[in-house]
């Protein structure tokens, strides 16, 4: 069964149409990458998967059931910024997931349950390579480390789907490479479904098992908001294969924000 299923999905803000007639089926275990021009509605689509926004028309289903209309632990998320809590140390950030689950009233664990949760949290930090930063606050971490922490925190809940909105967009190219290795390793090991928005076409091709392109099919030069974007390309990828050739050159040049990285 499909884990995510969109049928004839529309999203309008007033008379601005952002997304129109989106059809999509995502199988469990897919690594879906999403590219598209800035402002075309990628984040809006992600927010609908989160339950933060509701579609104005059409159906959105998660595991066969209607998408819950608020965020929940079955869908983890990492944004480009502000994904971790500044007032908690790295360990505290990861531990919070356990505390929220097991202490509904005081949201804190004491004694033995706390020790167990700490062990889990440390294990998760180790998995993303943050063992030495456990007691640092996010403001003391580099951008890459903060995103590692955000991923670790999201994975604590064993979500069905991990939603990533340009998670590495603010990072240096070298660090971005490390992050790619990390996310691929976690994806393979945890058998999780990933839905990742990126503005870097190469990143989309390198990471995904499937690449979606969001774009407008119709344009009205006098009313830019009249028509919305939809999925114009849906390309199955094999990992490691160069599949960029399957996109027309015009689309490639339009989306490629970092063309010189090909040679790097």
């Amino acid at each position, binding site marked *: 069964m499909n884990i995510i299923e969109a049928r004839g999905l529309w999203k309008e803000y007033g008379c601005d149409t952002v997304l129109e007639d989106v059809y999509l089926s995502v199988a469990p275990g897919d690594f879906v990458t999403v590219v598209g021009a800035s402002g075309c509605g990628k984040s809006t689509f992600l927010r609908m998967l989160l339950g933060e926004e509701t579609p104005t028309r059409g159906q959105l289903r998660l595991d066969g059931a209607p998408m819950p209309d608020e965020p929940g632990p079955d869908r983890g998320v990492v944004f480009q910024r502000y994904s971790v809590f500044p*007032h908690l140390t790295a360990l505290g950030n990861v531990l919070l997931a356990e505390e929220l689950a097991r202490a509904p009233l005081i949201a804190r664990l004491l004694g033995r349950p706390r020790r167990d949760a700490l062990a889990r949290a440390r294990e998760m930090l180790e998995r993303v390579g943050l063992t030495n930063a456990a007691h640092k606050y996010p403001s003391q971490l580099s951008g890459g480390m903060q995103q590692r922490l955000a991923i670790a925190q999201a994975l604590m809940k064993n979500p069905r789907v991990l939603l990533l909105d340009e998670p590495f967009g603010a990072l240096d190219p070298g660090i971005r490479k490390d992050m790619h290795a990390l996310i691929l390793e976690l994806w393979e090991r945890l058998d999780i479904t990933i839905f990742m928005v990126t503005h870097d076409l190469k990143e989309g091709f390198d990471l995904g098992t499937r690449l979606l392109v969001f774009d407008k099919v119709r344009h009205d030069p006098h009313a830019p908001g009249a028509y919305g974007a939809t999925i114009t390309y849906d390309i199955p990828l094999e990992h490691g294969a160069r599949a960029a050739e399957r996109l027309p050159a015009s689309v490639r040049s339009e989306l490629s924000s970092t063309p010189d990285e090909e040679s790097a």
Partner: protein
Amino acid sequence: MKRLINQRPGRVLGSTLALLPFALVLLAYVAASAARLADNPDDKLLPSLMTMADALVRLATEPSRRTGEILLWADTAASLARLLTGVAISMMLALAVGTATGLIPYLRRTLSPFLAALAMIPPLAILPILFIAFGVGELSKVVLIVFGILPFMMRDLQQRVEEIPGEQIVKAQTLGGSTWQILLRVAIPQTLPRLFDATRLSLGAAWLFLIAAEAIAAEQGLGYRIFLVRRYLDMQTILPYVAWITLLAFTLNGLLRRLNYWLFPWYATGRAK
């Protein structure tokens, strides 16, 4: 020669410059006082520093003939008790109400206009009502302080909660947090340092309302004393009292600042970025 905006004083020069205005005011006072006393040795308006020092020592060491208490300390204790009670109550209420209205849209819609209207009432205008309702004892003074500073603090905290990036609130929900848990573990801890900041900014107003209430009805207190001895033009008591109140306010301010720094190390480092 560098532009003025690029020139910075060193440590020693900086401290000297900071002291300069104080020294100038003191000097001006001493000169004016000496001039008046030379004209009329019995002048009460600008007593000499020596006279004031004598008065201060008397106030701080000799028991009063009427009550047997040492006036300065008794007044200070009475005033600080009122001030700190009012401020502490305001802090707790502001934190509870401000974070809740900031986080929960239904509460915000219900309470925001009401609280905004409440904040428009000049606190001193309702002082007579407080005296009638709560008597002229401690309660009415504490209530006046709370009424005077709570609306600002509450609204400040509400705004701080609203400023928490939406991403964090969403993230907390994806970690399974309930409204109550998010209030407890995200909204409150992140606004606590702001609470201390808001309190610091409210201290001036708190002192104002305290002294106003004490001036009108009290048997003790720093404000009460100043307004009592005003009748005798007793500048040698008033001026040291004012200096003492200023020192207390200054210390409280610094203490809150320090507390913020100690309790919330993430706050200072996060803001420095």
